[in-house]
């Protein structure tokens, strides 16, 4: 049954109406819509997680004549219960952009020419081998993504860490989630949230910490609004550096000065203790107190290293540490009135209220990202509001498989699918499962993402293979890294679906299958693994990233480690990978279970999913006989950290007198390489802009649409002003969305990072403005 052009437009009309309904009516569902009545019909609906953010909404994709033509929310998926956001409803249109990469290209005499994909893969394998033989194992690198499927990341790690012996495997999740990981590891000894989205149905108070959920996690935000509408007394408090759509919908908006969330979090703890709101039983039984190093730097120099060390302190020492953070003192640092700090503390401190804190990039893209993660856990731990329905410190993810692939498979330089390269037992386990010599796995981590691109610039790395990500838009202090990638003896391979500024620097472009053009799995923010089958064929010679890596591995002589056939490789890869997580703390569901359901939460033990970890009522790994078991740490306790306020790497001064904050908008996914090819989304927000406070705009003599030059110590950019738009920064701050490759705002940003997580801070650097 063929879908003609007119029917296709009709599907777009339906998609737009559904998306509009989703944005206007929180929690609305069209899940029982079974057919396109009156049209030529959709032959089949098939389940998949959404391609875009880390929420992991379940979608049903309607297929007609081999083409994905319609989307609706999957009513059987507990994540979204039939609801979608505008990106989800329009997601399948991202498959069909006119300039889709369908053939391989190789740069010859400076020009990219089309070649058969087998020839391009031959060249990739040859260059990889040649570079490794000439310059050593650490001269080659793989840079992937939180949009990698789980099998993509797994085979990348196996090839580079297991077979080639280099830990040069990183992923763009370093830029978005690394501080969440180190926050979890330092506070609990294990990564990923203890709670789940069901917390939204139970919490009385939601505090969004620097997190514009209305635009970044719209379906979860809708669930929150729906919960507030349904239940009396539910409150949303938005704690942010800029007034957003989230602030607008919140019951209260509290604005703080950039970086001072550290001080406010400590002040909340101070108030909780001062008012005797501490849950003494919980703290005595389940918490220990620690401090780490201070004045830890910002990583702006090459070869920067830092290792924290934990010192155990007692409760009295922690209380003494907090004396510097009375609400009155913190008001001076943060600009948050002492009364509002006390109000926040009273919400956390009230034993009759269940509190869920949400955060994402605001706390993670932070030069003290690990610390601020620790500090929000401190608050929840002091009052014992954790690991029970509605009481949840909840770190959200930004990408569909930042958790599933990067954090769980471990596609970061120090990680293995189970544990870390530094641990002998973990290396032995990997060597056994991967069928490689244990000596092959280097016990020393190499380069984290920023340092990896610095190494490419320096020439320490000569070969880099980039998959499913667009670093030539997203790297901070971008000009340095683009110039580095373009140097003569660098060889850059890029696997992608559309031309981007990253394919512009490529020596080889490999056409990639996208999302439902291949089989795979993602893992979302709430430990949910989501399988999707191949629903439509990839165009031209496009090939899954997993299979591209396997093809190169076979060419390099690793047939034994990559024995699978193209007809059936996802299931055996999954079953091999699953062995790494065997056991009650992280058991993953078998392939057959994943294939049937709209996602399964791990630990999956004896056919049962785990909704709240560390709580024996839900978590099969708890075995201490107490009401909670924080089994990730050797002392079986969650750790409270004394972490001070320290200023950011760069603050406004006389020469550069504005803060620059960067981020996203609801219509576009990351760098816009997919959503800008969806007409409805592109037309909604066709280009980027700089948000300016109306009084700052008046001082500059700028009105809406006027061009403004943004200048930092790294570079400058001229773009149109937006005044009183959807977001309003405070005076002295500007905000720029980064989705538009015509305006490369990261040429202006600073590559300072959290010394513990190595995650850069995209939210704070100093700029000055000129009317252009």
């Amino acid at each position, binding site marked *: 049954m063929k879908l003609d052009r007119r029917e296709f437009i*009709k599907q777009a009309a339906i998609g*737009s109406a559904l998306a509009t309904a989703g944005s206007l009516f929180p929690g609305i569902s069209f899940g029982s819509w079974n057919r396109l009545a009156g049209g030529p019909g959709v032959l089949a609906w098939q389940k998949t997680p959404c391609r875009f953010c880390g929420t992991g909404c379940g979608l049903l994709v309607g297929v007609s004549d081999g083409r994905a033509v319609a989307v609706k929310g999957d009513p059987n998926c507990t994540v979204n219960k039939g609801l979608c956001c505008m990106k989800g409803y329009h997601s399948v249109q991202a498959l069909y952009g006119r300039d889709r990469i369908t053939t391989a290209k190789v740069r010859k005499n400076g020009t990219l020419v089309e070649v058969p994909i087998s020839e391009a893969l031959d060249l990739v394998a040859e260059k990889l081998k040649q570079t490794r033989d000439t310059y050593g194992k650490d001269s080659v690198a793989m840079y992937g993504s939180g949009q990698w499927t789980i099998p993509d990341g797994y085979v990348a790690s196996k090839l580079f860490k297991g077979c080639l012996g280099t830990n040069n495997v990183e992923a763009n999740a370093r830029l978005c989630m690394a501080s969440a990981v180190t926050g979890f590891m330092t506070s609990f000894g294990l990564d990923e949230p203890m709670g789940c989205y069901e917390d939204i149905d139970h919490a009385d108070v939601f505090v969004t910490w620097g997190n514009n959920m209305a635009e970044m996690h719209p379906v979860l935000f809708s669930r929150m609004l729906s919960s507030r509408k349904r239940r009396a007394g539910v409150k949303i408090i938005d704690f942010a550096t800029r007034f957003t759509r989230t602030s607008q919908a919140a019951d209260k908006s509290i604005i703080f000065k950039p970086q001072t969330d550290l001080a406010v979090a400590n002040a909340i703890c101070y108030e909780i203790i001062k008012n005797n709101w501490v849950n003494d039983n919980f703290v005595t039984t389940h918490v220990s107190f620690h401090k780490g190093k201070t004045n830890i730097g910002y990583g702006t120099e090459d070869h920067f290293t830092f290792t924290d060390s934990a010192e155990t302190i007692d409760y009295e020492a922690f209380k003494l540490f907090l004396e510097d953070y009375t609400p009155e003192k913190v008001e001076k640092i943060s600009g948050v009135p002492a009364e509002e700090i006390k109000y926040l503390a009273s919400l956390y401190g009230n034993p009759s209220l269940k509190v869920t804190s949400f955060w994402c990039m605001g706390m993670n893209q932070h030069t003290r990202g690990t610390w601020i993660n620790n500090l929000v856990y401190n608050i929840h731990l002091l009052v014992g509001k954790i690991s029970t329905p509605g009481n949840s410190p909840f770190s959200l993810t930004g990408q569909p498989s930042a958790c599933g692939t990067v954090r769980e498979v471990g596609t970061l330089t120090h990680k293995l699918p189970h544990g870390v390269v530094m641990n002998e037992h973990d290396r032995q386990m990997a060597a056994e499962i991967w069928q490689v010599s244990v000596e092959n796995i280097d016990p020393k981590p190499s380069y984290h993402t920023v340092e990896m691109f610095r190494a490419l610039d320096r020439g320490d790395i000569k070969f880099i293979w980039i998959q499913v990500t667009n670093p030539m838009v997203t790297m901070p202090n971008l000009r340095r890294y683009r110039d580095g990638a373009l140097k003569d003896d660098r060889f850059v391979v890029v696997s992608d679906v559309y031309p981007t500024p990253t394919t512009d620097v490529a020596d080889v472009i490999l056409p990639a299958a996208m999302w439902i053009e291949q089989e795979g799995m993602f893992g979302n923010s709430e430990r949910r693994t989501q399988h999707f089958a191949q629903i439509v064929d990839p165009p031209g010679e496009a090939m899954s990233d997993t299979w591209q890596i396997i093809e190169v591995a076979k060419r390099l002589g690793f047939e034994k480690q990559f024995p699978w056939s193209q007809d059936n490789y996802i299931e055996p890869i999954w079953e091999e990978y699953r062995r790494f997580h065997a056991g009650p703390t992280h058991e993953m569901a078998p392939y057959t279970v994943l294939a049937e359901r709209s996602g399964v939460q791990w630990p999956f033990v004896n056919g049962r999913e785990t909704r709240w970890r560390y709580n024996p009522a839900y978590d099969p790994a708890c075995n201490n006989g107490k009401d909670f078991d924080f089994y990730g740490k050797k002392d079986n306790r969650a750790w409270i950290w004394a972490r001070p306020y320290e200023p950011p790497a760069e603050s406004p001064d006389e020469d550069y007198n504005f803060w620059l904050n960067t981020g996203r908008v609801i219509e576009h996914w990351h760098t816009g390489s997919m959503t800008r090819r969806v007409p409805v989304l592109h037309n909604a927000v066709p280009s980027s802009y700089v948000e300016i406070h109306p009084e700052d705009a008046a001082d500059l003599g700028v009105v809406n649409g006027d061009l403004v030059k943004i200048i930092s110590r790294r570079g400058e950019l001229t773009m149109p002003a937006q005044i009183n738009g959807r977001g309003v920064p405070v005076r002295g701050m500007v905000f720029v969305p980064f989705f538009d490759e015509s305006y490369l705002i990261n040429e202006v940003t600073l590559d300072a990072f959290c010394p513990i997580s190595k995650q850069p801070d995209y939210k704070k650097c100093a700029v000055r403005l000129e009317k252009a």
Partner: protein
Amino acid sequence: MPIFSYLAIPKKDARKTLCEELSTLEHCQIIPADNQDVVVLVTDTPDDHIEKKLQHTLKSLPSLQSLSLAFGYNEKLE
């Protein structure tokens, strides 16, 4: 040859009636929400004349409280 999509909001307690009335109209397709009083209406008419007649009919439906345009396309104008 216009195609439009709308969010149709029924008058109080008239959701079922609205769905029935819209279903009987030519050139109309509806997708009712599962859990709220909202109906997605898609119209696909062969020419402007019929489109105007349909719009007139829609506005006179007793069960309809409001109609909000979400998407519009007219081949003639492309």
